[in-house]
């Protein structure tokens, strides 16, 4: 994958790796223990342009391509998967707004998001609905000339410090998306602590009680909030999460092979044991495969191909599961030392599982991808010797659709 990068992309990768080595990796364990990322670190991300990297320069962003966006997440994912949560949700809110916002909304919000002066949070999940997006119960109603928002969102990354929420709910039966500034009366943010992983990602529950908003806060037309607004946000979130998982996987692999090559048990290194080599073989192969899938998804997005959505699903599905396996095996290779907080392995182990859940669980991805593959398989043809009656014929064999 590295060979197919342009010179500019390679330069950016070196920049990201240097940033992570200096500003992220040495402190990631502390952030995990403190369950917080210092504001000074968010300011450094903003100063480097990372929080608005995908937004066009017209709005103050860096206008980077998706391959470079992916390289940033890979580098950060190796240093601190929890920190990538900030980059992920910023991209989800920013890119959904860039695609579906009105010109006035883009002028009002995108420059601050691009500079990192404002952090966004993607308020989709609810306490009772989880991944069942169609079942959201958050309610918008029209009262004289304003929209009134009531409901609760939960497990929202970065909501502890975000300045604006992109909130999904229903207006009557229509799914709608709405920008809600944090300081709006009726908004109450309750931090969620003691998570297994992503402990520094600032998750919170947000309660909205009679929150009055102007109609101009709606993003996209009513009815298209889930199918189009959320879809674009989640798509960028999946690219981001896939590449973060790739970074975590790379971190696991490097830690495992270094330990296997240098740690001696008696006269032999750990890596001399066949059972350990099996773990490393699977990890290294998964790393190579995940890198190719992530790169392919980013390239498809850069070329604005329709299959970019599918490739992002595949990359996220594969990379997050591979990261979970790799983190588990890294702890195994390290032995007792991998179980202690002083080892990145123990943090990887806890963070990896979160990557398999956010932006759609593994099971949601299987449902979407499985259906997609079956739908594309094409009409079934009956075996030649078998003369079918109407009753025997599989519906898909003659599936046609007429108006």
């Amino acid at each position, binding site marked *: 994958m590295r060979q197919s990068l342009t010179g500019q992309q390679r330069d950016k990768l070196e920049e990201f790796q240097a940033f992570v080595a200096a500003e992220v990796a040495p402190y990631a364990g502390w952030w995990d223990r403190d369950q917080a990322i210092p504001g000074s670190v968010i300011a450094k991300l903003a100063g480097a342009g990372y929080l608005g990297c995908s937004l066009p320069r017209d709005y103050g962003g860096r206008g980077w391509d998706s391959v470079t966006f992916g390289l940033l997440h890979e580098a950060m994912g190796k240093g601190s998967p929890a920190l990538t949560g900030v980059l992920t949700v910023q991209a989800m809110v920013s890119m959904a707004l860039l695609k*579906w*916002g*009105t010109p006035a909304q883009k002028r009002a919000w995108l420059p601050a998001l691009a500079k990192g002066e404002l952090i966004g949070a993607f308020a989709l999940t609810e306490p009772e609905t989880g991944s069942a997006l169609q079942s959201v119960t958050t309610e918008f109603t029209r009262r004289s000339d304003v929209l009134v928002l009531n409901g609760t969102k939960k497990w929202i990354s970065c909501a502890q410090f975000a300045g604006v929420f992109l909130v999904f709910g229903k207006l009557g039966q229509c799914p709608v998306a709405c920008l809600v500034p944090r300081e709006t009366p009726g908004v109450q943010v309750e931090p969620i602590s003691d998570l297994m992983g992503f402990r520094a990602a600032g998750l919170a529950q947000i309660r909205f009680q009679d929150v009055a908003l102007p109609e101009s806060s709606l*993003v*996209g*037309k009513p*009815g*298209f909030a*889930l*199918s*189009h607004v959320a*879809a*674009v946000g989640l*798509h960028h979130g999946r690219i981001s999460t896939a590449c973060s998982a790739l970074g975590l996987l790379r971190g696991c692999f490097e830690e495992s092979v270094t330990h296997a090559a240098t740690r001696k048990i008696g006269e032999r290194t750990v890596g001399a044991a066949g059972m350990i080599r099996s773990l490393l073989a699977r990890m290294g192969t998964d790393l190579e495969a995940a890198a190719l899938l992530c790169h392919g998804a980013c390239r498809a997005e850069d070329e*604005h*191909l*329709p*299959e*970019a*959505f*599918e490739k992002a699903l595949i990359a996220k599905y594969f990379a997050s599961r591979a990261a979970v396996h790799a983190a588990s095996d890294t702890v195994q290779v390290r032995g007792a030392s991998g179980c202690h907080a002083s080892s990145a392995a123990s943090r990887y182990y806890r963070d990896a599982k979160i990557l398999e859940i956010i932006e759609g669980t593994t099971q949601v991805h299987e449902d*979407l991808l499985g*259906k*997609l593959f*079956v*739908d*594309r*398989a*094409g*009409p*079934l043809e009956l075996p030649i010797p078998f003369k079918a009656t109407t009753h025997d014929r599989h519906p*898909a064999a*003659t*599936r*046609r*659709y*007429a*108006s």
Partner: protein
Amino acid sequence: MNIADHDGIKETLRRYILSSVSLTHLDDDANLFESGIANSLFAVQLMTFVEKAFAIEVASEDLDIENFKSLNATAAFVLHKNTGRSV
């Protein structure tokens, strides 16, 4: 392809949809949403295909089920975006 050619646009769309779902035939006015062809994933893929194939941008004001409900409707939308003409 001549972008002003409604039938040409329609056939390009038809080829894409038939290559994406297990159908052998799709009528010009078949409703893509009521039939279940355009689920949420396919809806954004179709939108992206339309943007890429016909060099247009689908914006918030274009989000109308009438613009994408069928081959005929989508072709008319593309033609309108490109030329301002209605069919």
